[in-house]
Each structure stands twice: as C-alpha cells, then as structure tokens.
C-alpha cells in the first residue's frame, strides 16, 4: 500500500552493519580525553552486547540439533520439517555472524525425542523454549542485537505455529 506499513526510512545498512559487525566496534581505541573515555565505554557496551548474543548461540544450536534429531528418529517427519530446519540453520548462521566470538557448543544438543512419542509436539516444545529465550535476551540488549534476537524469536514463534 502506498501509505505502506513498511518503514520507508528504515536504516537497513545500519542494522546490517551493526549485527554483522559488533566485533568491529571492539577494535582499537583512538586517543583523546573524554572522547577516549566515551569510546571505551562504548567498547565495553559493544563487548557486553556481543557476549549476550554469543550466549544465545547454544540456544539456537539446540534448535538445529532438535530438527536433526527428529529427522533421525523419523525420516518422514524430518522431511516434513526440512524447510523449517533450513531456516533454523539460517538463523544460527546469522547469529554466529553477529557474535563471531561465540564458539560451537558441544553440549547444546537437547535430549532426543521420546521414543514413540509425538515428534512434532516435542519439536514444538524445544522451539518454543528457544523462542522464549531469544525474546527474553532481546529485551536485555539494544540496537542491532535487539533487532536480530527479536527477529529470531519471532521466526521461531512462527515455527511453533507451523508445527501445531
């Protein structure tokens, strides 16, 4: 619509640069009195934001692992959620790009789905829990990090709806 719901002035480049480049903010302080103090404060904040993003990486890794576990437990169900699994991986890639200091976790895989249980219901629970965790983290950060985590949380809420 011409009076479009899309925000015409949305700073796409700023958001992208921010989410992909929080680490760049950590590089080198320049000299100069109060300016230096402000920059150091900014660097500390950027580090804190990246740490908070990094803390969400295992949460998203667990989502990817859960989709994988369902595929192993039942190939047909795995096939039916293949598109969702691909999106979960895309979300993880985006999150890792924004938090390059995060390391892959060896313990992010959740317990496997219950044998003979409802795989989609189990998956819904796993994904729903991750969505809630991303949403809570979103509120605790700001700027590009908040935008990314909020979008991740919403994407996973969509997965929960699709799995219902």
């Amino acid at each position, binding site marked *: 619509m011409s009076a479009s719901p899309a*925000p015409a002035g949305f700073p796409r480049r700023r958001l992208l640069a921010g989410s992909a480049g929080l680490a760049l903010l950590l590089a080198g302080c320049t000299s100069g009195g109060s300016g230096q103090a402000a920059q150091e404060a900014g660097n500390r904040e950027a580090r804190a934001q990246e740490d908070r993003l990094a803390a969400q990486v295992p949460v998203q890794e667990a989502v990817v692992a859960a989709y994988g576990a369902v595929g192993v437990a039942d190939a047909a169900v795995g096939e039916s959620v293949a598109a969702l699994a691909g999106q979960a991986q*895309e979300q993880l890639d985006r999150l890792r790009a924004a938090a390059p200091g995060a390391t892959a976790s060896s313990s992010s895989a959740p317990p496997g789905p219950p044998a003979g249980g409802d795989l989609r219901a189990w998956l819904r629970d796993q994904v729903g829990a991750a969505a809630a965790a991303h949403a809570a983290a979103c509120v605790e950060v700001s700027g590009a990090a908040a935008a990314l985590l909020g979008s991740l949380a919403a994407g996973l809420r969509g997965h929960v709806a699709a799995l219902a």
Partner: protein
Amino acid sequence: MADDGSTGSTEDAALDDVLAAEHAAVWGYGVVGAALPPEGRGPAADGERAHRDSRDRLAELLDERDADPVPAGAGYELPFPVLSAADAAALAVVLEEGVSAAWVALLDAAADAEVRQLAVDSLGAAEERAVAWRTAAGRTPVTTALPGLPD
C-alpha cells in the same frame, strides 16, 4: 542506537513509524475481511482487533511522551486488487510483514526495555498471524527465518 542525547527522539520516531504501519494494517484488514466469505472472516476480525490494540497502545505511549502520534492516512493504495479469498490472504501477509519490519526497526532504535518487550511480543504475534495467512494464501514455506529483518 543514538547515544548523543537524541535517543528518546529516535525511539519516538520509530514508535511513530510502527503506529503508521498499524494504522495501515487496521485499514487493510477491513479490506481483507470484506473479501472473505462471512464464515471465514474470524481470523481477519482477530487480526484487525490485534492491530487496533497495538495502534491504541502506541498512540498512548506517544501521548505520554508528549509526542504527536501520526494520524491514520486519509486513504491507502492497495498493492494489488483484492478480489478473492486468496488475494485477501496475500494482502494480510503484506500487512503482517509490513508491521513486522516496523517492529524490528523499533527494536533497533529502542532505548527503553519496556518498549523492546512490547516490540518483541508484537513482532512474534505478527509472525504467527503471517504463518496462518501464508498457509491460507497457499505460500510455501509458510514461515520466514528472520521476520522483519532486512536481507
């Protein structure tokens, strides 16, 4: 995020952008509902109600800040003719994706944690509705990896 004293105005501007998107969504859902058969209008009515609630909350927030909430547009132009139930569902997808982009922009701009809470809750609800409308419109996949986030 601005840290030069303009944080509040940046946040208010983003709130106003979301409000403009919500005005458009309320109007658009009227078109969506009108194009659906009477027995299928429930989801449209639910969507319209949700966007009215968001609109009113945003206007209230801006009022509290002594900012002038943007009024609804005098008219809106549809992105395509809405002549069938499938068109209606496709329009609802456009509306939900539009407000999602605005909510994400607000998350990027918001300094206030309560505003971020409102934004993330509303963004998630918009994506849930979008999933239902993509399904009704016959789209695949019915989900998006990163709702509202620029590519």
